[in-house]
């Protein structure tokens, strides 16, 4: 099983991930009181039992519930920045070389920034969602096409 989807690392090896969940708890608590802190704690508990991605998904739902439909620019930046810290923290904890860390921070941060810009600039939310989803799918497809050409044309 993966070290990322199912936790099999010790907590000692997951310092930055823990720090990220701590950031979510503190930020949520300072912005939305007890409800915000509970979201961070529940997310941390989920991470101990579930793959990281699902824990982040649960945290995201919790944050949206406590923040309401209009969280404001600052709130969005702080809370989503905390989730970004969780994901990047996990990448850094798991990785052993700089390529992984650079790609992890660059791509996750870039996608998060794109999503933030989209919801800030585009008026209709569905258009923003479409823009983010379309961009990520396009990039993923290009990577897939590259792998097809690269591996199938260069079989040993």
């Amino acid at each position, binding site marked *: *099983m*993966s*070290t*990322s*989807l199912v936790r099999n690392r010790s907590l000692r090896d997951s310092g930055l991930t823990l720090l990220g969940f701590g950031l979510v708890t503190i930020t949520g608590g300072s912005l939305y009181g007890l409800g915000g802190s509970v979201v961070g704690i529940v997310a941390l508990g989920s991470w101990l039992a579930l793959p990281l*991605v*699902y824990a*982040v*998904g649960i945290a*995201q*739902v919790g*944050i*949206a519930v406590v*923040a309401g*439909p209009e*969280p404001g620019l600052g709130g*969005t930046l702080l*809370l*989503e920045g905390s*989730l*970004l810290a969780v*994901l990047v923290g996990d*990448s850094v904890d*798991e*990785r*052993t*070389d700089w*390529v*992984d860390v650079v*790609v*992890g921070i*660059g*791509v*996750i*941060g*870039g*996608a*998060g920034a*794109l*999503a*933030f810009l*989209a*919801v800030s600039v585009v008026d209709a*939310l569905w258009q*923003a*969602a479409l823009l*983010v*989803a379309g961009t*990520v799918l396009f*990039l*993923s497809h290009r*990577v897939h096409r*590259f*792998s*097809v050409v*690269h*591996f199938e044309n*260069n*079989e*040993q």
Partner: protein
Amino acid sequence: MEVTQRCGRIVAVCGTLTLWAVIAANPLFVVGAGLLAGWLLSRQILFVYRASVSRDRLTVDMLPGRTHVTAGETTPLTLAVDVAPPVLLSTSVTVAPPYNDAVTVELRSAESSASSVESLSWPVAGRYSLDDVTVTFRDRAGLFEQSLGWDGGPSIHVEPRAPRDVHVGEGGDALVSGFGEHDAGRLGSGLEPAEVRKYVPGDAFRRIDWKATARLNEPHVREFEAETDRETILMFDQRRSMATGEEGQQKLDYVRQVALAFVDSASELNDPLGYCAIGSDGVLGIHRPGMSAEILGSIREELIRASPMASATAGASATDLTTVRERSDLLAEDPSAFGGVLAPYLRTRQSYVETFEEDPLFQAIQTYAMGSSAIGWTVIFTDDTDRAELREAVRLASRGGRYVVVFLTPTVLFEPVSVTDVEAAYERYVDFEEFRRELAAYDRVDAYEVGPGDRLSSVLTAGQSRRRGQA
């Protein structure tokens, strides 16, 4: 690149968050979905990068214990996989040898080498390449996979179980010269010395034998055996009657050894060689005469794989050929021990190139051997079951100045005989010998017996004892 179910679940989470953002009109979900999608994209990019690096560093070594084995034997195969320096990616290498279960070596993430030794069994003769190799890269999170073909596996030559006491000769006397050796019947400028004769005007000076000239005190030249390219076609009988005998010691196994010797001889002497395999219903395979390594290799392969073929129309069953094939396909997929034993034989089944209603040997010679060069040789490998057809076939093959050599397996030497039946066996052998002499008496025809030497000795000994007793 393939995505796993696990990857699909994460995509579903991203999609759900995005949909929820639109339904609940909450932009936080879009940002959250963007973060998760970014995480997945980073994994995909890293996977492609690592798989590319891993492929460049990967070495796959397959070391069979032996590259030449006899049918029915087993040989170990060592599969070693090395990625140095190691990569954060799990790699599995799978080799699928014919007639055996796949051999797989797993190299876990950050490991640099792994190996496995498996025992492979080879039930059917032939030449097999272990080139069905698949390399699969899998990322640590189990999200993506990439499979590649991998070339460069070794070949295993599986020789048929060959009898050890092959006797080739006439009337119990073994043949002295090798198969396929041939004199041109005239003198010339070859390599084998033939005779020394007096120099006559017109002889080239370079052909003068100076030692003989000095010894005999007048000019002499040395003659050599002239060499010719002899076009030979092998007519190989694979009919049901060639299956007589114990497993691995059937008539066909004996004549196969002689036919293989012809292939080796043709290879050494650069003689063009053709091949025609005859089954109960017609011609199973044909190779027009040629001397290239590919043609000789193909003939050799066909001989190695040859097995007696029963007539598809034999018996009273109304089952048509299509039904038989469908049933054999079903049996080939049968995972039981019964299916496992039969599967190799079903895979090697042959189909007819051309079918004949009757006398397939005669018809095959008429169709294929007679179209070849008029100065060529036809070599027939068969038994004494259908003597009338063989007589006609030999007469036909020897028409037009062609030479014919017949290698006959006496049925009496292959049937199980008790000690009390040895005298009767001698009578049958005498009958066979008369038939062989009859064939050998035809113009440009030589006929030889092929069979187990020890069995022939015991039959001849029994015959001598009886003659002494009568005297």
